[in-house]
């Protein structure tokens, strides 16, 4: 194990003398944590509304006011005809048009019924779904107001009424950043860890320096450990920077213990770095290893539950997520940071990750051969 000490010394020196690594190490977390959460705001608001009002009555004006004052909609366009309104959707000026028919007020009062037309640009399905639900809710509400004006309701409910109250636990302000930041942190640590590790051995191969290691009395395990430990330390450092930024910039303080996060991260990084090293032992050029690790992390990230909930995925994709270390870490990170889960709650997650770590690293050691070519 004496060789390991020297290997570590060599790797750490190499890292600390490579300004590009240091730059990446500090710039990446900054950019990802300062810009991404600002951008990754999925909350559906600011829906651009176009109105085609054929009625121009007191009722239609009141309805439009009510919709705009809800805060979800921005009145962007007033068109004289439906086809003009459609044009504004085509040009992406509006997302949703509300057409109020002529005599809307009259037929509502005289005939007890009136119909509004809504057309939604549904290329973005989520936005269209929530947007139309919001506007229909507002219209219903407005409908209730109108009824109240015309009918004297008794003080007590005349019909059985069920009142539904909603409590939003763990994130009562429905703040999207609280949800995204822990996930982004995971992505950050994963990207840095796996791509550095994947590159490293290949770089030695490409530069020819691996020959020197091959002819020296270094054991295979020592070699892999010598690569693993420095990057493990780097990634832990990045995690610390990330957690600090999350705390200082977004005021996100984990409900659970930092120790829980670090314990899990320690195991997780062993697994993800092992995977990177494994890819690295297979690749011949840096271009290859970068592309492969990029490809693998991309699949891992997409199937991690960071962007879309895992339960919504079809069965085969859910099955894949079971073999995806990233999805475990994202789940754990959110559990610990938002819900205050402890080590006991995440014990199965840890066990799974220990399994991954052993699997990837032993494979990497087995596959690293000291022969060239």
């Amino acid at each position: 194990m004496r060789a390991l000490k020297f290997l570590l010394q060599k790797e750490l020196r190499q890292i600390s003398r490579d300004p590009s690594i240091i730059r990446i190490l500090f710039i990446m977390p900054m950019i990802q944590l300062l810009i991404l959460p600002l951008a990754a705001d999925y909350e559906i608001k600011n829906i651009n509304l176009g109105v085609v009002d054929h009625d121009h009555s007191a009722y239609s004006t009141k309805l439009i006011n009510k919709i705009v004052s809800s805060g979800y909609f921005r009145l962007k366009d007033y068109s004289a005809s439906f086809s003009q309104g459609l044009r504004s959707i085509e040009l992406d000026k509006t997302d949703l048009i509300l057409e109020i028919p002529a005599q809307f007020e009259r037929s509502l009062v005289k005939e007890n019924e009136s119909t509004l037309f809504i057309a939604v640009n549904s290329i973005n399905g989520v936005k269209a779904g929530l947007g139309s639900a919001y506007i229909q809710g507002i219209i219903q509400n407005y409908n209730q107001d109108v009824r109240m004006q015309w009918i004297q309701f008794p003080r007590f409910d005349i019909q059985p009424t069920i009142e539904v109250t909603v409590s939003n636990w763990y994130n009562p302000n429905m703040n999207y950043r609280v949800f995204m930041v822990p996930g982004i942190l995971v992505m950050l640590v994963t990207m840095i860890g796996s791509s550095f590790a994947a590159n490293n051995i290949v770089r030695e191969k490409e530069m020819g320096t691996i020959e020197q290691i091959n002819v020296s009395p270094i054991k295979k395990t020592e070699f892999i450990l010598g690569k693993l430990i420095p990057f493990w330390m780097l990634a832990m450092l990045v995690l610390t920077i990330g957690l600090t930024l999350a705390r200082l910039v977004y005021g996100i303080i984990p409900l659970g213990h930092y120790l829980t996060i670090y314990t899990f991260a320690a195991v997780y990084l062993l697994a993800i770095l092992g995977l990177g090293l494994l890819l690295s032992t297979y690749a011949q050029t840096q271009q290859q290893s970068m592309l492969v690790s990029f490809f693998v992390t991309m699949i891992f990230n997409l199937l991690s539950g960071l962007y879309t909930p895992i339960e919504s995925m079809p069965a085969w994709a859910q099955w894949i997520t079971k073999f995806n270390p990233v999805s475990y870490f994202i789940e754990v990170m959110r559990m610990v940071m938002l819900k205050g889960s402890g080590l006991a709650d995440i014990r199965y997650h840890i066990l799974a990750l220990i399994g991954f770590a052993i699997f990837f690293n032993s494979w990497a050691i087995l596959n690293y051969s000291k022969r060239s070519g």
Partner: protein
Amino acid sequence: MYGGQQLNKEMKQFFIFVKKECLHIWRDRRTLFILIWMPVVQIVLYGFALTNEVKNSKIAIFDQSRDQATMAISNEIAASRYFNLVKNVYSYEQIGATFRQGKIRMAVVFPRGFRYDLLHSNHAQIQLIADASDPNTANTLTNYATAIINDYQQSLNNNADLPYTIKTQLRMLYNPELKGAYNFVPGVMALVLMLVCAMMTSISIVKEKEMGTMEVILVSPLKPFRIIIAKTVPYLLVSMLNIASILLLSVYALDVPIVGSLWLLLGESVLFTITSLSVGILISNGAKTQQTAMFTSMMSLFLPTLLFSGFLFPVENMPIPLQVISNVVPSKWYYIIVKSVMIKGLGFSAVWKETLILVAMTLTLLSISIYKFKIRLA
């Protein structure tokens, strides 16, 4: 005559170089394999695996009255395709513990004497507790559950018609089934082209620097900048192949049709490919190692494409400075073009502005890289 011969000779040299670069990629089967399969995998994942659609969400029920009414409502909720009842709990503490283990997304709480209240005072309460760590899902879940409860309430009232009713007629344009693919396909196209063209080109150029073979190229009789152009040609070909596979998959596997003109779409894609290639060339100018080239590409291309093109995250929600930044990201304009042409079926008159922006960006990028291109090393 001499000029013509000279031109011929130069062209020949150029094509020899293109051939060399093509062979490079052709022989690196692993890289080629990934370059060709990446868009396919992305389309399959985005198209089939990634949906925000909520279904089979795990819920728990805390029923403190266990009467006919609560049973009926519980059954209705459990039977819907949105929910999957995994647990009956018996206290609020237990709800908290189940949430902490990540086992459920929502809990439905019936208070004691639910049916009694409903029948005698015409008023009863149900509490929905959602795990709002994911706000959108929480919103959607509570909306669905409320709708189911409202239906039950309606059935109690025998659907009595209320006076003064405003009805709404809803029309979903372009994507009536609200499929995620309509949004993702244009985004994946932008993402893949950026990646293949810009990242791979910049890495392959920088590789020559790192390996020292750049010196050989710089002293060769061919004009250096042409060599760089020659390096981009194979990636142009690969990306054409990618566009074809993405379009075929989206039409035949995802049922996302190409409503507008196919030729216009292809033309715009070639334009965007050239833009991405020029970005790659510019990056390779600055980077010294492949690793730097890759991270620069990631930082300046991949992430901005993901963030600012608008296919994953709504640009209109971003703070103003970020919205301004989003305008310099080429993918944003390409994304708008693809959406307009492919999905909305609009013609060139609708996208000429975006096209012009892409052309201007390409010309600027190329002139900067030509200006900054150094014939001397170091």
